């Protein structure tokens, strides 16, 4: 340390605080005048400090995981009881399912029922939505050699999406169930009533043409119907919702606004649309 006489040192000490306060105001002015200065200094500082934080990250993560572990242990007991109860319930359902399966088997054998073949499907990525003739349609990218045909059924991981309307050499267009031109024959699952689900370009297609004496109930499940030979029966479509005006609509299971990939099922059905019989898209998709 530099040796200074005591009075000088005291004077310096007395002077340094006002000086530093003046310097603080200076820094404030500097920061106000050059707005980028602080950013630059901050980035330099974080560059210098990042090794420290990187070294700290490991023990921090260890501590955090230990805390998580402790919390997990605390909830383990409760979770265990819950799981046990759930397991009991599932066991019950499992038993029921097994019983039903054997019964089903038995009945089928007695009825000489022809089982349906498991459908083949391909998965294709959605690359664009909109475009083409329809307001609600998506374009799929397919490989150069694909077996996609017009009229195949598109489903996402939750439910019915639409039908293939155009097939190119590397792409295919799927008309969504919400499009104005879409008409899908459906069955209301509880009443077993047939109806037609007509798209309206909105988020929820409307139900139409249900038989007299049946009223679509809010929350009723809607599945496809095998009528007209265009779809297999029983594909999940959505649930009935009543609009504020009391019009029955279908809330689709499929998330049509965020389609990433769809599965195209080949059920070997050739109803309504003879494959490749018309060059341009059909104005009507279903039968009224």
């Amino acid at each position: 340390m530099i040796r200074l006489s005591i009075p000088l040192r005291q004077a310096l000490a007395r002077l340094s605080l006002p000086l530093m306060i003046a310097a603080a105001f200076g820094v404030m002015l500097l920061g106000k005048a050059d707005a980028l200065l602080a950013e630059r200094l901050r980035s330099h500082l974080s560059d210098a400090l990042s090794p420290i934080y990187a070294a700290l990250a490991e023990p921090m993560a260890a501590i955090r995981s230990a805390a998580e572990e402790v919390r997990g242990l605390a909830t383990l007991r409760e979770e265990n009881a819950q799981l046990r109860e759930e397991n009991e319930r599932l066991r019950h359902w499992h038993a029921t399912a097994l019983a039903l399966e054997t019964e089903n088997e038995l009945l089928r054998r007695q009825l000489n029922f022809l089982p349906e073949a498991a459908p083949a499907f391909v998965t294709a990525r959605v690359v664009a939505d909109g475009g083409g003739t329809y307001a609600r349609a998506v374009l799929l990218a397919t490989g150069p050699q694909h077996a996609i045909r017009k009229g195949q059924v598109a489903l996402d991981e939750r439910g019915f999406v639409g039908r293939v309307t155009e097939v190119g050499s590397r792409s295919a267009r799927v008309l969504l169930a919400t499009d104005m031109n879409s008409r899908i024959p459906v069955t209301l699952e509880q009443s077993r009533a047939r109806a037609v689900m007509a798209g309206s370009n909105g988020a929820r297609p409307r139900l139409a043409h249900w038989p007299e004496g049946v009223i679509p109930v809010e929350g009723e499940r809607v599945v496809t119907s095998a009528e007209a030979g265009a779809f297999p029966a029983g594909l999940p479509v959505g649930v009935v919702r009543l609009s504020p005006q009391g019009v029955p609509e279908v809330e689709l299971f499929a998330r049509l606004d965020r389609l990433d990939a769809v599965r195209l099922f080949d059920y070997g059905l050739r109803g309504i649309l003879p494959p490749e019989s018309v060059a341009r898209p059909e104005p009507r998709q279903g039968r009224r």
Partner: protein
Amino acid sequence: MAMPPARRPQGRPAPAPGLLRRIDAFARFAFPGFSTAFLMVLAAAPVSLPSPVFAVALPCVAFWSVFRPAAMTPPIVLLLGLLLDLLTLAPLGVSVLVLLAVHALALRLRRFLARQSFLMVWLAFCLAGLGAAALFWGLQALLSLRLPPFAPALHAAMLAAGFYPAIALVLTRVHEAMLQAENAP
């Protein structure tokens, strides 16, 4: 307590300051500043908590200003304030002024505070912290020309008040150890 570290009891010729002794004295001189800076850097570590940098810096600066002003000089406070400004996203210079104000206040009151019990010092610190938060908020409002929400400043003041006992406990131990080392023959 406020004795500069170089002065020794009368009646004994001061030994020539050897290298080790000088390193020792320098370590004692540098410890408050460096430990505060280190604590601030640690507090600024990106964890999922609200950043307690201000709440860590304030007790350290106040404690050392009261009990060891020779090692917490205004230039050191200025540097700590700059570090605080850069670690937090405050406008440049605001924390510098706040820390200097706390330092000046502590210097003014240190003769009184050093004789009080811990509880009184804590109470005084709480008031000072509240004032510092208010000053911080006011300067921020002045520099950005709009009213920032007052709640974060209040939280920081409360956090600082809550941190003070823990920090002071450790720092008191360190300070006592330093005093012992200085008074040892």
